């Protein structure tokens, strides 16, 4: 690949890009949903009418009503408050798991792409092996080894999503490592680490952001899935997946326990997907055309 081609392969960041992305209705809806859930994360104690852990056996399994908008669970805990607090766990999972995958994946991809040769071969074969597992299954194995719990489930999901970032960043590095500005930096005596962190990484921010947004929805679903299977957040934590698992036991008699946490997961994932789709379509020249 020539230097010119290499530079052409790098997405160019232009001022006002974000504003252009957000001009689309779907992006606006996605952003609105995401912002609402972010606000709820912060404002949960102000908005929630009850403490999410408060039990009131006289209200056990009561239907949605003016008193309990989303009904109450088997211990009489207010479902609306529990779903609201569940927003915190879900978004924490996005930050921790997606963040971990991003950091590990970027590091692996940068090293593989920049050093090439055996280093590249070893890292990429490892990536291939991890990709040979279905996501949830690998996460299950890791979390089983680490022990059930929210932190461990977030670490497991982070590890599972790492190869995606590694592949992406390696591709970016290969595309720009012979670009003029990288050669110029090398000629000026910049170290490999400096070139990677100051020149290669910032020029890969756009695709990383697109992937992080697209992965965020999956991270929410997978974390909730692990909790649903009993391997993530443990009772009485108001985690959406754990609430759904509770609801499964009562779904014949109390439909509301499973319905509302699932709806919340669906909406958050929809928000991230709308936003991610808009970013991807905007920055991918093939799709834009």
């Amino acid at each position: 690949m020539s230097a010119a081609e290499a530079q052409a392969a790098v997405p160019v960041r232009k001022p006002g890009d974000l504003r252009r992305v957000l001009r689309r209705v779907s992006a606006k809806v996605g952003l609105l949903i995401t912002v609402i859930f972010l606000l709820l994360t912060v404002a949960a104690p102000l908005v929630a009418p009850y403490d999410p852990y408060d039990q009131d056996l006289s209200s056990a399994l009561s239907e949605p009503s003016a008193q309990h908008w989303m009904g109450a669970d088997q211990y009489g805990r207010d479902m609306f408050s529990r779903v609201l607090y569940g927003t915190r766990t879900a978004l924490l999972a996005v930050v921790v798991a997606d963040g971990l995958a991003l950091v590990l994946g970027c590091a692996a991809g940068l090293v593989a792409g920049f050093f090439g040769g055996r280093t590249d071969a070893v890292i990429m074969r490892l990536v291939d092996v991890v990709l040979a597992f279905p996501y949830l299954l690998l996460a299950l194995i890791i979390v089983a080894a680490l022990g059930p719990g929210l932190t461990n489930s977030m670490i497991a999901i982070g590890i599972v999503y790492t190869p995606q970032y590694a592949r992406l960043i390696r591709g970016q590095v290969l595309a720009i490592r012979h670009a003029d500005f990288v050669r110029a930096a090398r000629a000026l005596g910049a170290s490999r680490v400096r070139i990677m962190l100051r020149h290669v990484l910032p020029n890969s921010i756009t695709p990383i952001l697109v992937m992080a947004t697209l992965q965020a929805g999956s991270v929410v679903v997978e974390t909730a899935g692990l909790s649903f299977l009993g391997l993530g957040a443990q009772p009485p934590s108001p985690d959406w997946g754990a609430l759904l698992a509770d609801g499964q036991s009562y779904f014949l008699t109390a439909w509301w326990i499973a319905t509302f946490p699932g709806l919340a997961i669906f909406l958050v994932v929809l928000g991230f997907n709308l936003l991610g789709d808009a970013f991807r379509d905007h920055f991918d020249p093939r799709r834009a055309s």
Partner: protein
Amino acid sequence: MTRYVIGRLGQLVLVLIGVSVIVFFTMHVLPGDVATLLLGERATAEQLVSLRHQLGLDQPVVVQYADFALEAARGDLGTSLRSNHTALADVWTAFPVTLQLALSALLLATLIGVPIGVVAGTRAGGMLDNVLMTATLFGVSMPIFWLGLMLLLLFGAGLGWLPIGGLMPVGLDAPRVTGMTVIDSLIAGRADLIAASLRHLTLPAVTLATIPLAMIARVTRSEMLATATLDHVRTARAKGMTERRVILRHILRNALIPIVTVIGLQLGLLLSGAVLTETIFSLPGLGRLMVDSILSRDYPVVQAGALFIAGVFVLVNLLVDLSYGLLDPRIRRS
């Protein structure tokens, strides 16, 4: 071509070795003692030592792995700590349940997803396109464990149209031939068995098909749009070919490779989804077996299951790659 297939099968062996290393060391190096788990907290120190020795757990991990790898190469993946069957036998018994579920979901997803993508792609920007694409976006965003419960609530508990779990009604079983209830019922040739197995399969298959269906529809649409602008399509139209023929022969045919790739890649998603779907619908498949084995630290079954699933996954990817030659004569020739 033969050399290519042999090379890919060689890669499969490497991937399986890698998978076995990851699973083995994850299950053995990380915290948690299998002997304590099996015997319970009240076991005496002597009992624990004896069991560890019996299971070979008192050996260095590398030695344990070498033993495991040698036995695995001979086809022995150990004995289940729970059922006392060979680990491979447990996996083999559960696999047809998951295979039937995954294949029926993939069939549904393809039969509905591709036409939706074609319709949306040929009416891009129109009302129908917008409605269909919004629906697929909802599909992609759906947590299937929630969807499964909602379908159970509506069609199982609410309307009573379909059963709420299990493979077959209690007391009604087709003689086991393949382990796939629908096929076994067909082989038995009894209408009541066929109807019962299909009724039990419907909700799990629909649940599991939702996300792949949405993804296949979206990729079909975007590939239809990308292919529709190519020169040969314009030429076909200029020659006066009917629109139906242009779509089927010139656009869809050329858009098939990415569509087939996506269909093949759905397998991983289906196997992941099967874990949750089998949990919701109480199906004794491979996903459920893996979860139960992980929770009870039945590591021979976890290892056997993981190797089996990874092997199937890599083999399917190979088949997808080989199918390109059938779809595109240029690839076949090269």
